[in-house]
Each structure stands twice: as structure tokens, then as C-alpha cells.
């Protein structure tokens, strides 16, 4: 009985840690979903660019030692720059009418980013600074890691700012107009290319923040992060519903908590299998995403 209680405490602890870390999945998912909403295209290189933003801040850190908040800020700026570069290389001059052209261009970009990172770091993991990693907030048998709390707070603030931007400013309303009726939006005087470019820059900044927070939570950056975060980001996007920002946030937390719970219950080698199962359950029951109507009813 006592063993069971300890297990339960550990499980709740895992779920809490997963929820905190899940905010990074939510940010990656928002990036995928926003670009899909505006362009009707997937940007497969988004998670890679987010982590590349964090790498860029490590590179800056290597030149002059900087305090951690400055490193995170550099990651956000670099993420924005990468977002714009990806827009130029993979979308601006590629015919949008061809469904596979931009998809393959961004897959190519994903591989390119990975190659550059592996080449520059010889594939070695790079330490990443964290804040409050020596703090532990205790609640009876539970403890909240300070660095994860920091990651959570930064992510929540970043997502809050993004939501304000999308729902309360001219850029956001123009962006949503484009995603709903591209032709009519143009005929209301909104420049499509300019709006699309701004969407890439802003999602890029969010990605840079996500990359930095992943680095801060994991403690290192490694080329091995790209693929899992691409896949998890896409899973979050699908579970949240393509194009839905609130959906991506909820799905990010859900996937984070789910994965950590199963890491505790079944071990780290099995956990992703259960995340995939979660995805299939959603595809079966709610193919339109977490906030859509159940399948089979209209």
C-alpha cells in the first residue's frame, strides 16, 4: 500500500513536470499551426529552425560570455531571422500552387539545418545555460524544479504576447483575414507577401524562444533534438487541430504530460509509442482536432 502511494506521488510529479515542459511543445505546435493557417502549407523545418536559433545563441555565448537571459534573447532574435530566411528560400519564390514544392523545400531546409549543426559542432552536445536550476519549490511530497518553472513562465508569457498580437493588433487581424479569405484580404488592401513574411518572422521568434527553453530545460543542445521536436510539434498540431492556436496550446500540455507519465510508467524507450497511440486515438475520434466535433457527427 505504501509502495503504491509512493508510485502515485511519483506519477503526479511526472505529470506536473511534463505539463511544465509541454509548453515548449505548445510553442512549436503554434508555429506549425500559424504558418499552416496563413499559407495553407506545412513548414517542416520549423522545429529545426527553432533549435538552430538556440544554437546561434550558444555560438554568440562562445564568443563573449553572456548572462543567460541575454542568451535567450539572442535565440529569439536569431529565430526571427531564420524564420524570414526560410520564408524567402522555401516559400517566396516557389510556386505555391504546387502542393509538394514548398513541402519538399522545407524538408530540404530541415536536413540542411541539421547538417550545418552537425558539421559545426562535430555532432557533440553543447551545454546550454539555464536559470534557477538550483531552486526546488517543495509542496509536501512534491517538488517543482526551478528551471522548469522558469521555462513554463517564459513560455506562457511568450504565448500570451503572441495571442495578444494575433487577436488584438492590426498585424494579427490582417493575418487572420489572410488565413480566412486570401483573395478578399488582398482586395481589402492587405499585401499577401508582406503579411506572410511577418508571420514567418513572428513564428520564428516564438520558435527561438522555444528552442532556448528546450535548451534550458534539457541542459544541452544536440542534433538529436530536431527530429523528436519536429514529430512532437506536428503531433501537437494535429491533436490541436490544424490552424487552431488554443488547440495547439492545450495539445502541447497534453502531450507533455502524457509523455512524462508514460516515461515514468513504462520507461523512456517506450514513451513515444504511447504518444503515437494518443495521436491515433485523436485521429480516430477527433480528426479535426481537440476542439472540433467528434468524428461521424456533423
Amino acid at each position: 500500500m505504501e509502495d503504491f502511494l509512493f508510485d502515485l506521488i511519483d506519477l503526479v510529479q511526472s505529470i506536473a513536470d511534463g505539463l511544465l515542459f509541454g509548453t515548449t511543445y505548445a510553442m512549436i505546435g503554434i508555429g506549425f499551426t500559424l504558418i499552416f493557417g496563413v499559407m495553407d502549407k506545412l513548414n517542416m523545418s520549423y522545429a529545426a529552425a527553432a533549435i538552430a536559433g538556440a544554437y546561434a545563441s550558444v555560438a554568440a555565448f562562445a564568443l563573449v560570455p553572456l548572462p543567460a537571459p541575454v542568451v535567450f534573447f539572442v535565440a529569439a532574435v536569431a529565430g526571427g531571422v531564420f524564420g524570414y530566411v526560410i520564408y524567402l528560400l522555401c516559400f517566396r519564390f516557389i510556386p505555391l500552387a504546387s502542393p509538394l514544392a514548398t513541402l519538399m523545400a522545407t524538408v530540404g531546409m530541415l536536413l540542411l539545418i541539421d547538417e550545418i549543426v552537425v558539421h559545426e559542432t562535430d555532432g557533440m552536445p553543447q551545454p546550454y545555460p539555464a536559470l534557477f536550476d538550483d531552486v526546488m519549490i517543495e509542496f509536501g511530497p512534491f517538488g517543482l524544479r526551478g528551471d522548469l518553472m522558469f521555462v513554463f513562465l517564459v513560455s506562457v508569457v511568450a504565448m500570451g504576447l503572441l495571442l495578444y498580437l494575433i487577436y488584438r493588433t492590426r498585424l494579427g487581424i490582417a493575418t487572420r483575414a489572410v488565413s480566412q479569405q486570401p483573395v478578399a484580404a488582398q482586395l481589402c488592401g492587405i499585401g499577401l507577401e508582406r503579411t506572410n513574411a511577418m508571420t514567418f518572422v513572428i513564428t520564428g521568434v516564438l520558435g527561438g524562444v522555444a528552442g532556448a527553453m528546450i535548451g534550458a530545460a534539457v541542459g544541452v543542445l544536440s542534433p538529436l533534438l530536431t527530429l523528436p521536436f519536429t514529430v512532437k510539434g506536428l503531433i501537437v498540431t494535429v491533436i490541436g487541430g490544424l490552424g487552431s492556436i488554443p488547440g495547439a496550446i492545450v495539445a502541447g500540455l497534453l502531450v507533455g504530460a502524457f509523455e512524462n507519465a508514460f516515461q515514468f510508467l513504462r520507461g523512456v524507450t517506450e514513451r513515444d509509442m504511447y504518444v503515437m497511440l494518443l495521436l491515433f486515438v485523436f485521429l480516430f475520434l477527433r480528426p479535426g482536432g481537440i476542439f472540433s466535433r467528434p468524428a461521424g457527427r456533423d
Partner: protein
Amino acid sequence: MLELKSLSKHFGGVRAVDGLGLEVREGEIFGLIGPNGSGKSTTVNLICGVFPVTAGEIRFEGRDITHAQPHVCLAAGIARTFQNIRLFGHLSVWQNLWVAQNALADRKSAGFVKRWFSGSARARDETGALLEFAGLAAKADDLAGNLSFGEQRRLELARALAAKPKMLLLDEPAAGMNMEEVGQLRERLGALREDGKTILLVEHVMELVMGVTDRIAVLNFGQKIAEGTPDEIQNDPLVREAYLGTSGQGDA
């Protein structure tokens, strides 16, 4: 004000618009009619830059806008409505108007931050006059997608007016309206003419076209087959044939 010179649009082998020449004068309501598939909507799409032009020229106030992009045409002073309504369904009524109102302000470059990131705290008030015009003041906060059909049509017209255009292209604004609504639309168009707007009206509803336009051009198979005052058009034998004759597409 608006001049089309031997304007052509080919979709593959189909000549949707074929050597069309037109002139719309400032301050008039110009009707563009013709059977289904005669090239009316294509012409509108060419003027406002939605379709690329195959051949010919479009001039607005003397300026060449043949290859201008849609948002550039709007900046030049041409706004439009759509045959099948294209509102921003997930934005509220006032936001639909605000998007169009502010698009032009963007161009005047109020500085990067103000242009993109200024909030919408006072924005709702700025759309007040247009909400009144559309008779939608009470529904300003509703989602555009939840409005009734007639309300959506009114909102589309108000949205087209939001950017203060000199010229309006109206693509079948009376489609699906009952006679009472057509009458209201006719009054609105009259009021817009009083305001000095130039209007190109594509329409099937003859009560509206014959009642409100100054001049009319008739298209058939992408070519102009007649042009004149409503009276002249009604008595034109070619027009009668196009609508009632061999093609058998008399849907007027």
C-alpha cells in the same frame, strides 16, 4: 475613369474575355450584363488584379494598372464585392470593416511599430459610420460568418467602401435577394452615386440594372455585343438574341 483596351483573358483554349474595350466615366453607374459564362466576372477579376491579363490594357485615371496586384489596385482606388460572399467569417463584423479601413493607412507608413503593432482599443469606434451604413450597428460584435445572407451582402458592400475607393466593382450584389432587398440595394447604390462614387455593376437582376444604371454594355462569349443607355439596350436585337436566341441560356 476606367478604360479597358482590347482586354483578353484565355483559360487554355477558352477565350473568357476576348478583345473587350470599355470606358466607364467618372460618377456614373455602368452596367455589365450578359448570359452566364459571357465573361462578366472574369472582367471584374481582371480589373482588380485577381487574374493575370492575357493581352490588352487596363487604365484607371490614366494610370496603367494592367499587371497591378490586387492590393495595389485597391490603393489606386478600386474596391469590389464578390458574387459568392467572401467575408472573413471568423472575424467580428467590425473587424471585417477595420481590416479594410486600415489597409490603406499601412501604405502611408506611420512607422513600423505603429503600422503593425498598434492595438485595436479605439478601432471599434472608427468603424461606426460604416456599421450605420450597413445597418449592422447592433451586430458589430457578432462573427461575420453568423450573419444572415442579406446582412452578409450589406457587410461586404460596407467593407468595400471602408478603404474609401473612388470606384466600386459590384459582382452580382443582388443575387439571391428578394424584391424588397433589391429595392433597398437600389437606394444604397443611388446614395453612393450622390456621394460621387463610380460604380461598375455586374448583375443578372434586370429590375436593378435597368433602374439604376446610366449606361450598359452587354457581353456574349467574351465580346461586347452592345453598349448604350438602358432603353437602347432593351430594344437591341443582338441583345435579345443573346439572351433568348440560339444559345438558349436566357436566364435574365
